């Protein structure tokens, strides 16, 4: 394949942000009809490289060649004109518009007298069906859908055009196995039609499954370009991390003993037929101290909604909630927090980050909120806490005063996790906590969760990766069609078991 001219050829790309050299002389070649994985730890510079290519960021030095022609795109619009189609890391769509509009925005079919809305719908339907999303109403407002659906819509938008290059920056971070497979089917067919695809993911399985070749970055520098099948996983990981991987050996299953139900004790949290009209129903949970409850279910099955109910972000209007033996109504997140409940949202951008505040301010925010505004956490204590967690979670750059919106996606996620860890909650609800986190950090976080549970913290764990759920949880609650349908103690539950329940029990 090497004789062929690359579709995209990046050479010596450098970008410096104030204080950070995000890219330092990076090369990348993309060939027609290949899936190319861009690999690296959180903050390695993957997203920045993509933004450099598509003209979001101006480059300091280097050359961008597309189809043999040198370019310097002045913005995403120009990159699109050169038939480069991109899904950026955070969902970048317009929440106020409908799905179909989002898919076709800027390239609406026209006819005499304006936009051909019928055709818009037809095309949107077609591409949604291609992604197996035919059940979605193309006219519904985007913001009414979960992050996963939004991610899929973004993908639908990107594959809707006739592109030469398709760039997908962590497109699968919220998706279930099923959706991932659907996406891969589309990717493969595009590849077979000669599209060059750049794919970023922290899921090694997926990378190995779909990619032909990969480029590895570390700290903004190029480590090398490899053929996927020639690079064993372990060496990929050590190339990404720059060190040998002993700390990273898969989480030992024996580490996660199933903590038995303590039927003698009062459960920390007891939900009985908890629900909310139009949202989720029939949530029955008994969670004891030190237990991990995993929520399993398909995309849109209501896991996020369940978590929101338990946190008071939405108010429950059915059933009963008992916390440590007393019946409670959670009117707001505030009251949940007062009961020792913490919730880390899957929607980092809208529901987590305070973008214009520093890492430190973001990190201590929840703790400060629960202490009240009068008792400001002293500066030295703030610094101490921040430094501790920057170290513990390996947050990069290790700069307390950096604005959080300038951090890479994975590092933002770590800060948000730390925000809740410092409040030392009794119950920690984690909705996709490992979303967009690199393999090293992910294992670290899984370990952390396990340790926290060992220390007596209860955890509700939601992840699109069912394996991760099965590996960590003591109990697994299965949701289907926004109702809870089963609660399994995790004594060797397998993926098949869960899938059977989801497939089987008619709601």
């Amino acid at each position, binding site marked *: 394949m090497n004789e062929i001219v690359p579709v995209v050829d990046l050479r010596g790309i450098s970008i410096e942000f104030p204080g950070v050299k995000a890219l330092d002389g990076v090369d990348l070649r993309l060939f027609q009809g290949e899936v190319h994985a861009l690999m690296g730890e959180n903050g390695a510079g993957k997203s920045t490289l993509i933004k450099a290519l598509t003209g*979001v960021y101006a480059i300091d030095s280097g050359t961008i060649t597309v189809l043999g022609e040198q370019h310097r795109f002045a913005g995403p619009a120009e990159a699109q004109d050169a038939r480069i189609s991109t899904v950026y890391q955070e969902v970048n769509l317009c929440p106020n518009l409908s799905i179909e509009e989002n898919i076709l925005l800027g390239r609406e079919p026209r006819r005499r007298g304006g936009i051909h809305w019928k055709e818009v719908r037809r095309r949107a339907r077609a591409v949604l069906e291609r992604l197996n999303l035919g059940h979605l109403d193309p006219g519904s407002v985007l913001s009414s859908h979960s992050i996963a659906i939004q991610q899929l819509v973004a993908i639908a938008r990107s594959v809707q055009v006739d592109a030469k290059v398709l760039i997908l920056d962590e497109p699968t971070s919220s998706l279930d196995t099923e959706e991932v497979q659907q996406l891969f089917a589309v990717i493969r067919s595009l590849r077979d039609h000669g599209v060059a695809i750049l794919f970023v993911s922290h899921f090694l399985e997926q990378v190995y499954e779909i990619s032909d070749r990969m480029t590895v970055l570390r700290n903004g520098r190029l480590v090398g370009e490899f053929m996927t099948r020639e690079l064993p996983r372990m060496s990929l990981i050590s190339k990404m991390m720059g060190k040998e991987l002993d700390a990273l050996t898969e989480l030992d299953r024996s580490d996660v003993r199933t903590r038995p139900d303590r039927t003698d004790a009062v459960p920390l949290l007891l939900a009985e037929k908890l629900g909310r009209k139009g949202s989720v129903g029939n949530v029955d949970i008994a969670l004891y101290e030190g237990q991990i409850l995993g929520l399993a279910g398909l995309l849109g099955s209501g896991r996020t909604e369940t978590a929101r109910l338990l946190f008071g972000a939405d108010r429950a209007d059915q059933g009963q909630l008992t916390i440590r033996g007393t019946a409670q109504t959670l009117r707001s997140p505030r009251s949940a927090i007062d009961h020792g409940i913490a919730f880390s949202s899957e929607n980092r951008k*809208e529901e987590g980050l*305070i973008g214009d505040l520093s890492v430190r*301010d973001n990190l201590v925010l929840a703790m*400060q*909120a629960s202490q009240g505004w009068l*008792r400001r*956490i002293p500066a030295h204590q703030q610094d101490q806490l921040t430094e501790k967690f920057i170290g513990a979670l390996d947050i990069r750059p290790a700069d307390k005063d950096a604005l959080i919106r300038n951090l890479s996606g994975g590092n933002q996620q770590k800060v948000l996790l730390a925000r809740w860890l410092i409040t030392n909650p009794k119950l920690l609800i984690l909705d996709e906590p490992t979303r967009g986190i690199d393999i090293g950090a992910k294992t670290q976080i899984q370990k952390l969760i396990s340790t926290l549970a060992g220390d007596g913290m209860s955890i509700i764990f939601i992840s699109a990766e069912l394996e991760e759920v099965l590996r960590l949880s003591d109990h697994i609650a299965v949701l289907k069609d926004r109702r809870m349908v089963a609660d399994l103690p995790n004594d060797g539950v397998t993926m098949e078991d869960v899938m059977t329940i989801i497939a089987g029990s008619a709601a």
Partner: protein
Amino acid sequence: MNALLKHRLTWPVLALVLLLLLNQVFRADFLSVRLQDGHLYGSLIDILRNGAPTILIALGMTLVIASRGIDLSVGAVAAIAGAVSCTYIYTSPDPSSLRTAAVAVALAVVAGLVLGLWNGFLVSVVGIQPIIATLVLMTAGRGLAQLVTDGQIISVSNDSYQSIGAGFVLGLPISILIAAAAFLAAGLLTRRTALGTLIEAVGINPVASRLAGLNARTITMAVYVFSGLCAAIAGLMISSNVTAADANNAGLYIEMDAILAVVIGGTSLAGGRYSLVGTLIGALIIQTLTTTVYTLGIPPEVTLVFKALVVIIVCLLQSSRARTLLKQRRRPVTATSDVKVAI
């Protein structure tokens, strides 16, 4: 030097200094301050004294804007405060006593707090967009003030009351001292406690703030109450300065001046990070601008054109984009933040 150039207050300060120097060029004794009848006297003192109400109101406005709101009602609240206090003094049996003045001030302050609470309630509990919520009071408020004064200008003669806006202690105008005290109080209150950060958090991302456990409602309420309080005190200053309550004209358009001051001071109307010092400088720039018009003898017909040009120049100076365009420095093509002007 470079750090100094980058500091966000450098350019507003520079603008202020330039304006003052411009005046000095036209009038050699502009910057001189002398002692007259035992108190300081001079154009600089006038700027501070006349700027005190704007400074006060802009302080309150800064916090409101930081929380992603806006308060259009401040002028009306100032008018109500003046109307309430002057009408009380006018109708009281002992219109020149200290006690009467004290009660009048207390009444005005309470009125300001209540009106602030009302705005805060509409915005945070009822959930009306701030610009409209406060537009209601902006419209109705002057009516209320006129209702209190029966549409008349109420003149009072009470020395203690007059001293709020026109009096001196130790040679310093009392209004400046009040503004300074309010400035310090606001600074301490927001920076020594966590209030400042919490307000910023609510302003930047209200949803995330709520999920982090912040009581956004209370915080919002608090900033509007503070704004109401500042407006009431400013209203007292304005009316005491001329020893009369003019329900229709007191504090007219002061909300625009205050917003302008806040923005010139570097606080974004989209909410979030704010700078009280910046606001202070912004308010001084605006007052100096008015004085400059008088000093230069600019005819009233072109005053507005002149003001508009200065405002544009100050904003251009302050815009980092303008400077980078000049220097042709590399920067991300895309705007980094997703925030929108929220008013």
